[in-house]
């Protein structure tokens, strides 16, 4: 992937403050804000909020967490789901055992606990590079899920091993309705996006990109490699931990360690690849693709009347084949991810009447 293309992907956010007062980009962001915080919670019904929008945003957040590590710092991880699980189990235990803590504090603490996990499993990155880094993170995946499954203390000795949401409220407001959970997720995502944006434009973010592009050069120019790498793992895990907590409590309402299996780690990885490496917004597009495509395919079958011609068994098996083919098609057509398609479209639209 060339540096110029990457610059294009970052471009979307980076030039935000330099454009004219009423640029298309600003208008788009304003419209997005109104849609996310005003229109969707009013218009969205249970099905849209619970099954489509909430999981998309939460998986987008998880993608964001991994993208900070992979896209910006150039480090590898196959253990995303393990850190999500850490966040989920931490939230459950904090809510259960320290009931006086308000929900935002619990979410933050859970993120930090997941971050601690990231720190520990990030240590090998000081000695191991490239693809080999997938081994210790894979270890995190297996070790952490094993830990939560084996020691029943983490699930409060519940025989079913299922941790279910003890209470979802903030300053006395009940958030357990689908609208409440949506707002919790959307507001958290908003804050984390701002935070991620700030981090990648700070010294830390620039150092990450320097390490990613050429570690030796970065080290020569005085970038503290070890510290920055560990910071990348910690920050990424904080994001993943919060995403995991939201996945368990704002989306499923329950979770066991199987919820955060290796499959989920791969899903997060695909979100980053399809959405666009080194992009913030792309994660949400990638998440929408990964979460919604199988559902759309499943709904299209009866709509197109295909179930009258093909038996259910074939349909169920054709759907993942089409899904896989779509992924390959997209990666060939848009190797920089859907984010680059999206920002090209926006850019083209902003000069549209003057160009043919």
């Amino acid at each position, binding site marked *: 992937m060339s540096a110029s293309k990457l610059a294009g992907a970052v471009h979307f956010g980076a030039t935000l403050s330099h454009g004219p007062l009423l640029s298309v980009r600003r208008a788009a962001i304003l419209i997005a804000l109104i849609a996310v915080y005003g229109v969707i919670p009013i218009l969205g019904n*249970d*099905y849209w909020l*619970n*099954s*489509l929008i909430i*999981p998309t945003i939460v998986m987008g957040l998880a993608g964001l967490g991994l993208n900070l590590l992979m896209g910006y710092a150039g480090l590898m991880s196959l253990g995303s789901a393990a850190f999500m699980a850490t966040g989920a189990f931490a939230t459950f235990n904090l809510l259960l055992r320290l009931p006086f803590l308000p929900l935002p504090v619990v979410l933050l603490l859970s993120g930090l606990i997941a971050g601690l996990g990231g720190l520990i499993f990030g240590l090998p990155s000081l000695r191991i590079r490239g693809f080999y880094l997938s081994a210790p993170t894979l270890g995190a995946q297996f070790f952490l899920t*094993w830990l939560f*499954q084996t020691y029943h203390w983490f699930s409060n000795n519940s*025989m*079913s*091993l*299922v941790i*279910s*949401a003890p209470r979802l409220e903030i300053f006395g407001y009940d958030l357990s309705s689908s609208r409440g959970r949506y707002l919790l997720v959307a507001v958290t995502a908003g804050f984390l996006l701002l935070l991620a944006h700030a981090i990648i434009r700070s010294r830390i973010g620039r150092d990450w990109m320097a390490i990613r592009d050429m570690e030796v050069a970065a080290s020569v120019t005085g970038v503290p490699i070890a510290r920055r790498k560990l910071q990348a793992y910690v920050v990424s895990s904080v994001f993943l931990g919060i995403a995991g907590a939201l996945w368990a409590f704002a*989306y*499923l*309402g*329950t979770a*066991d360690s*199987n*919820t955060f299996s290796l499959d989920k780690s791969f899903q997060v990885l695909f979100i980053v690849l399809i959405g666009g490496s080194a992009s913030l917004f792309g994660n949400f597009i990638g998440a929408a693709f990964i979460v*919604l495509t*199988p*559902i*759309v*395919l*499943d*709904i*299209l079958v*009866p*709509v197109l009347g295909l*179930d009258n011609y093909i*038996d*259910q*068994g074939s*349909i*169920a*098996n054709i*759907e*993942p084949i089409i899904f896989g083919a779509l992924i390959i098609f997209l990666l060939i*057509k848009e190797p920089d991810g859907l984010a680059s*398609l*999206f920002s*090209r*479209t926006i850019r*083209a639209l902003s000069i549209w009447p003057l160009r043919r």
Partner: protein
Amino acid sequence: MRFKRSLQTLAGVLAAASVGLSVPPAHAADHANEQLYPLFSYRTGPYAPAGIPQWGGIRDYFNYINSHGGIDGVKVLVQECETAYTLERAFECYERYKHGYQGAQVAALFDTSSGFDAAISDEARADKLPVVSVAGGREDAVDGAVFPYQFPVLFDYWTESSIVINYIAKQLGGLDKLKGQKIATVYHDSGYGRDTIEPLAILAKKYGFIDIEIPVADPGEQQQAQWQQIKQQGVNWVFLRAWGVMTPVAIKTAARVGFPSDHIIGDIWSGSEEDVKPAGSAAIGYKAVTVFPSGSNFAISQTLKKEIIDPGKSDLRDTSKFGSVYYNAGLVAAIIYSEAIHTGHEKFGNRPLTPAEGQWALEHLDITPERVAALGATGLLSPLKLSPEDHEGEPSAKIQQWDGHHWVVLTGWLNGDRALFHDAIFAKAAAYAKQKNLPPRTPVTN
């Protein structure tokens, strides 16, 4: 040009998505005279081999019912929703179908996985939608006063533990011979698998056998360590509570360490053809509990064979699965569903039922032995009577043995010692009500 192409791609993606997500309401009420049966299937993923024959049984039975005009004239609309055995997809299916589909109402949701059954509990309560789990689900939900919308009908794993221990005692020549026996439970490390830890502890205390609990992590493709441990500790009997690929691996590994297959008694989800055939000759002699006896000699099976299987109308691709344990499991679920709807029709009239009416119907379901015979399901389905207080019925099961080609049923319907657990189970339900701060259901009868 590049821009144009990307716009086209984007437009294409958006158009496909919006068609997919927005069209269903366009032709609402197409199926207003039908009763919706949402089928949360898994024809893909690791548990597909256990799923496919079940969906075959369910669809074939409804196909047969519909070809005779439906249940009291109300046709059943089966709407399948693929979950790949994941929670997320099952949740999406739940949201998609909880209010019905194109005018067809849901009277009761028959779920298809223990994990989903546990996870949907709170939401189904809020939506007031009855959720039925045939021979599965959380056992404390038998207390209809605490769980008005959950129905773990037909069987539970606590009773199963007691049936297995009673059967072992019979082989030894009496319950007093259990003392000092080493009985290991090898279980799938999940909510489903852990469910028998408590009842076995109670039974071990009562009869004096040594209770050894050995977990196997999902999916259970590696069990050398567990079976080595069983061999080393000199275990006499093994109660195998597996699911999916874990069963054949367990049977094969047992043979490798030299544990006799006829001293392993499998769970109801470890006793199908799909479980033993991959283990080959190692499985000969292996026993299992069953609530869905295999076979195609039941009267209803013969009718289905004539009207559905032979004319090629079956959902099964591979009709050799007809009469298998999982196929019959699907059949049993479909029969219970039809009988529940029929019970509702007797009170509310012959029309599609609402969830509230479905709940009433389930709580007054009474499939007597005579009714079972009239359905042609004698030997396939044990009589089932539910009430607002008891959402399970009288659990009973048979023990069967694999002879290398077929499952041979060894016993009649066994009941186990359900009374022994009554207090423990209802105490669990009460504790749940307290934890969740649930108001008592008044009146319990409705």
